[in-house]
């Protein structure tokens, strides 16, 4: 028997079929690998693209910090002048980096930041650019900020506003009931905190944290000037429940200041004369006068009978004792910013029993006004209680930005 030998044409067919089969398998494999590669690139590209954003925002964050801390010296902390209209800084974080500029004009400040992240396995960088505008904000943007509660017990208690820098909203820089305004915004940040007005009035907005409440009696009101003069209850849109503020503790300003000396000024004997400079004392009692810009740290309590600030003088008082009775005040400059009181965490009680012009920042203190005493300025405290016919008048001049100690808030955020 002869073995069968395939003709050449059949051998060619088998080769062709094999080649075609291999080609189909190869194409399928190539397609699969291409799909896998595309998918991988898509994921990597997406992750890199998204990572660029926090990188750029890190640049924005650094720029805002620089504005707050170095507004008067913009070429500090590694920033350099770039051209004539901006300051420039770059910084690396991990494999990526950001480049950021701040405009020389700070009203508003224009910040442009670009975040760069490398594609994995490549030296090519993906970039995203953000432009932010930041406006200066005042240190006292609220009439009152409290941690726990606002309580108004008594008829005639009112929280309203005036503007010591505007003659249409004040008279001689002082509060004038006929020119009172409705810029007295009140904020209470505790979730269990309440703003309880009773029959009192707030000429402004009331902000509480989620869970907090604004309650009014039959004659109490929160809202605009017109609303307060004609209606009761909370005016629609003038109360919100999303307050989210940070109220950090006041810190000890220094240690080692000299105690002030007693003295005779204008025929009156004072137990302490603050004649300019830095002072430290164990307690503050009796009659006190400020004759020049002074900073005083009282490590104990304050219980003064009279507190005089001469015209053109200012004072900052830090109190570390548990209580502060601020006595009768004579505010020569007639400005709230001329008398700033800071309560350290150990200061838990502040009382005024007669009219007082100034600012109070005491996050751990219960602040109270009674006996018809009126407070003019702005207050940050643990709680606030107004009794009798006491009133609280917010000086809206405090809301105006101060270039010497600015804060900034983002007013525009655009990706370029």
């Amino acid at each position, binding site marked *: 028997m002869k073995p069968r030998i395939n003709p050449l044409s059949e051998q060619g067919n088998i080769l062709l079929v094999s080649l075609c089969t291999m080609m189909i398998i190869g194409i399928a494999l190539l397609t699969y690998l291409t*799909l896998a590669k595309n*998918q991988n690139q898509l994921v990597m590209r997406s992750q890199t*693209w998204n990572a660029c954003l926090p990188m750029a925002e890190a640049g924005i964050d650094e720029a805002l910090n620089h504005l707050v801390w170095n507004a008067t010296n913009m070429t500090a902390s590694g920033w350099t002048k770039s051209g004539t209209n901006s300051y420039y800084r770059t910084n690396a974080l991990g494999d990526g980096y950001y480049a950021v500029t701040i405009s020389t004009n700070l009203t508003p400040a224009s910040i442009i930041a670009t975040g760069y992240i490398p594609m994995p396995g490549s030296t090519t960088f993906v970039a995203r650019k953000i432009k932010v505008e930041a406006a200066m904000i005042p240190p006292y943007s609220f009439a009152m900020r409290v941690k726990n509660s606002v309580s108004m017990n008594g008829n005639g208690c009112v929280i309203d506003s005036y503007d010591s820098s505007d003659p249409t909203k004040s008279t001689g820089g002082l509060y004038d009931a006929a020119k009172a305004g409705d810029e007295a915004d009140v904020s209470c940040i505790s979730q269990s905190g309440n703003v309880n007005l009773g029959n009192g009035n707030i000429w402004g907005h009331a902000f509480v944290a989620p869970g907090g409440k604004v309650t009014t009696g039959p004659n109490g009101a929160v809202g605009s000037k017109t609303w307060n003069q004609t209606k009761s209850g909370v005016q629609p849109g003038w109360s919100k429940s999303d307050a989210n503020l940070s109220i950090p503790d006041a810190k000890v300003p220094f240690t080692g200041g000299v105690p002030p000396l007693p003295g005779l000024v204008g025929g009156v004997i004072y137990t302490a004369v603050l004649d300019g400079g830095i002072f430290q004392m164990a307690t503050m009692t009796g009659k006190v006068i400020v004759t020049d810009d002074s900073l005083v740290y009282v490590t104990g309590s304050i219980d003064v009978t009279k507190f005089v600030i001469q015209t053109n003088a200012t004072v900052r008082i830090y109190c570390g004792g548990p209580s502060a009775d601020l006595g009768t005040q004579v505010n020569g400059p007639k400005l709230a910013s001329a008398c700033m009181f800071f309560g350290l965490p150990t200061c838990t009680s502040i009382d005024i029993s007669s009219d007082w012009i100034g600012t109070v920042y005491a996050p751990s203190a219960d602040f109270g006004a009674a006996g018809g005493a009126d407070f003019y300025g702005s207050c940050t405290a643990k709680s606030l209680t107004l009794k009798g016919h006491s009133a609280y008048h917010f000086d809206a001049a405090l809301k105006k930005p101060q270039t010497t100690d600015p804060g900034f808030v983002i007013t525009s955020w*655009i990706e370029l």
Partner: protein
Amino acid sequence: MVGIGLSGLLTTVIAAMTLYSGTNFARLVNYTDMDSAGVNAIDQISRDIRQANGLFAYSPSSITLRTDNTNQNLTYTYSNGSRVLTRKLGTNAATTVLSECDGMSFSMYQRTPIHGSFNQYEPGTTNEAKVIFVTWNCSRAIHGKKSTTDNASTARIVMRVN
């Protein structure tokens, strides 16, 4: 006969493998395509929400944002009937951002975080909205049968301004 039988069996196996491979390839292509469309959509939405300065109108299937850079309202609307998400800027014609979408919902939250969690409180009104949460699931059919789904698209986006 044996040859014919073997040939038939081989042909059936090849046909089945071809069909199976083809279907799987179609699923792979669909998945890549839908993933790409989802990534593009989430990038577009997150970018728009991030730079908005407020929420003007809200429903679980639609949001209208206020924007400073265009001075126009920007509306995202999901249509359950046509399974598409559209984007409409001012009076311009609506454009399709995402298609083949089986379900989509928007949620809004305010700025205040809930203590001990990463979540925020729900706002009483759109004026208090600071965070937008969006989620969707898409699917694509092969031979009339839903065979590819993309369920992983969710995002919680914070409006940066204010």
